[in-house]
């Protein structure tokens, strides 16, 4: 399954919002190597409203078993205070099922390097595919939660100030901070790069 296939399911809905559970059901049904997407709620002593993604199989005992993998998205319970923030965070993490092989953090050595990269925020030229995938998924989540067919209906009113960030957040059920970059002209550029086979 490619990102484009999942995006087209979202765009095929009769109207927004695009549900996280709708997306994960499509992944379960149509992704050839992912058996399911499990979502876990955990508690941290100091709530951080964070989430992370893990791909693997906890039950597998041999790397040679012919089993499908399980995608896990683990979130801090404090994210539940803002349902939109939580859905955007979980959707962004779900987009990592499309990570390229070079972007996979699949060894302890890569894991250590990746943590340092997130901490140090290297220059783009020095960033690994692992770190760059974090930026890609930020936009992939925005595109799939705000499919172009629906988003374009509101651009003129947004630019003329008839609609505010609040309104866009209401329509797509996204955090308000996502609305400005979804309604920005850069959306078109991100769309072309991440969905190159679809008409703009």
């Amino acid at each position: 399954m490619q990102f484009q296939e999942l995006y087209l399911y979202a765009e095929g809905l009769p109207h927004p919002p695009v549900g996280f559970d709708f997306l994960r059901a499509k992944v379960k049904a149509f992704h050839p190597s992912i058996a399911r997407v499990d979502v876990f709620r955990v508690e941290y002593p100091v709530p951080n409203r964070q989430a992370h993604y893990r791909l693997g199989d906890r039950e597998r005992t041999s790397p040679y078993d012919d089993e499908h993998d399980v995608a896990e998205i683990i979130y801090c319970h404090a994210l539940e205070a803002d349902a939109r923030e939580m859905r955007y965070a979980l959707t962004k993490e779900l987009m990592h099922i499309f990570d390229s092989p070079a972007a996979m953090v699949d060894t302890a050595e890569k894991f250590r390097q990746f943590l340092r990269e997130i901490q140090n925020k290297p220059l783009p030229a020095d960033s690994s595919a692992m770190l760059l995938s974090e930026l890609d998924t930020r936009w992939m989540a925005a595109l799939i939660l705000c499919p172009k067919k629906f988003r374009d209906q509101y651009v003129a009113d947004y630019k003329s100030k008839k609609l505010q960030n609040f309104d866009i957040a209401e329509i797509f059920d996204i955090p308000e901070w996502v609305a400005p970059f979804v309604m920005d002209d850069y959306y078109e550029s991100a769309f072309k790069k991440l969905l190159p086979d679809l008409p703009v």
Partner: protein
Amino acid sequence: MSTQIERAAQMLFPDEGGRTLNIKFFCGGVENNISAESLAEQVVRAEVQIRAGSARLVENVDSHLTPVT
């Protein structure tokens, strides 16, 4: 290397048993000012809860949404 980072690495990439094929963080693309140590601690605490069975499996994330048909 910090203890938490090594502990997280050992939990995710054990010598035997279920290995991790990929791990990523929400904050990686959207937030500044986070340390490698705190990310590792996040992983360790989550892994402990999942393995102990105290993490809750969430079946319905969109319960607040208008159902989409």
